[in-house]
């Protein structure tokens, strides 16, 4: 098994954090994993993206020319990356701020009103974790408990106070798509 996921949005949405925390959890569940942030002549407020590969064997390339899963957090990223999604792959959309819809027909599309859910919780910054909740439910790549354990570890003592709202955000995203939906 080799699954590649690409996360994209604008700087500040926690796009790199999404990929990093997923790779961290995959490592703790015993998988081979690579995390590759896009690096380049980037600007503050510009685009951000990263690729996570998860496999039960050695990973040849951390680059995803055709990712199985695309997690799209803003409209420009949708236009940039939708054609890269693998045939039969899935695009997760932050539908709160993306009005457009993918033109790709042979991929699954999941709309997640992450911005609104996070606003309602009182902290728009957790929109990324809402999306990850939905992502982990639908992909089954790793266990929800394993993900939260990693998130707690990454946040450490310094950010312990905001773990609770992140846990709630994760649960809200996870519950968006009940079993079989």
């Amino acid at each position, binding site marked *: 098994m080799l699954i590649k996921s690409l996360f994209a949005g604008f700087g500040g949405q926690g796009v790199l954090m999404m990929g990093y925390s997923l790779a961290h959890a995959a490592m703790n569940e015993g998988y081979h994993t690579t995390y590759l*942030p896009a690096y380049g002549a980037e600007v503050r407020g510009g685009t951000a993206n990263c690729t996570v590969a998860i496999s039960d064997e050695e990973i040849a*390339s*951390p680059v995803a020319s055709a990712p199985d899963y695309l997690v799209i957090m803003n409209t420009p990223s949708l236009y940039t990356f939708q054609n890269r999604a693998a045939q039969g792959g899935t695009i997760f959309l932050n539908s709160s701020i993306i009005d457009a819809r993918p033109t790709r027909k042979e991929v699954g599309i999941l709309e997640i009103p992450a911005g609104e859910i996070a606003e309602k919780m009182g902290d728009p910054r957790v929109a990324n974790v809402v999306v990850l909740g939905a992502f982990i439910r639908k992909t089954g790549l790793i266990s929800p408990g394993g993900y939260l354990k990693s998130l707690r570890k990454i946040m450490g003592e310094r950010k312990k106070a905001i773990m609770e709202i992140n846990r709630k955000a994760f649960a809200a995203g996870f519950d968006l798509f009940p079993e079989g939906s």
Partner: protein
Amino acid sequence: MNKILIQGNRVIGEAAIRAGCRFYAGYPITPQNELTEYMADNLRKAGGTFIQGESEIASVNMILGASAAGARVMTSSSSPGISLKQEGISSMAADELPGVIVNMMRGGPGLGNISPSQGDYFQATKGGGHGDYRVIVLAPASVQELADLTMDAFDLADEYRNPVMILADGMIGQMMEPVLFKTPKPRSYSEKFHLRGCGEGKSKFIRGLILDPLHEEEHNWKLHRKYKTIIAREPRHETFRTEDADFLVIAYGTAARVAKGAIKRARESGIRVGLLRPITLWPFPSDAVRSFAGKASKFLVFEMSTGQMLEDVQLALGNSEKIHFYGRPGGVVPAPVEVAKIIAQHA
């Protein structure tokens, strides 16, 4: 001990500090900045000295000086910056000073770009600067191997009193992978080589300026004998799926991991293909390559350049029509499926 998820550039810093590196000087350049940043954050905490030099040339000369005084030293840069450091590396080789130089290669020539590339093979393995010298060149293909080889680099540098280069690229530098640190060996480097003032004793000196040609000739032959020893003792390589291989791919670093993915695909369509991955680029594992001369009927050298290691493979095997080449220079990392197509074409 648990694995940690860590970026390639940062793992070099951590492995270096664990190995006892206590002096680092560098100058920023993408895609290796996180290493300089890591050393700025952590070397002083370990009791070492971090200096952001005013230039690449200043930084390499600072490590030369600190090495002469007996410190474990490292500098790092990426392709254009490594070109600037060559004068200092040549001097370290002449002075027989240990030190580790990291090159996270990017697209070139000139300023090129900041994408992963393997265009500096010739520069790294054939001397790089002026004069008749060599540096040991280690080519990691994963973040774990970057951690392991960084520790080994310091030991090799001490053992042979010679600069050692870690040659990787922007992709390995930027990528995060799980890493488990090995226990570094205790340093064994004689204090008799340290220049710390003579006190009451006899003065010692290190010099690279040897005006008498006969003395310089003698020094050159002495270095040469050391390089012969390194060639005899230190080549390293890894093989993958070569047990029944009739077709051998030869690739290093990032290209080698892409090649592994390609080989798995090619095997699925029945091609008996394997990989030889040089881990030391100098000394080049010529004997290992040559050992496949009778076993494999086809060879494919794959590099992220227009063909540099290719020449060492040709030297090992003799130039022949059996040796094919696939190159992607300029900062392109091809997908395994692209390399698999090339394998299928030649199979």
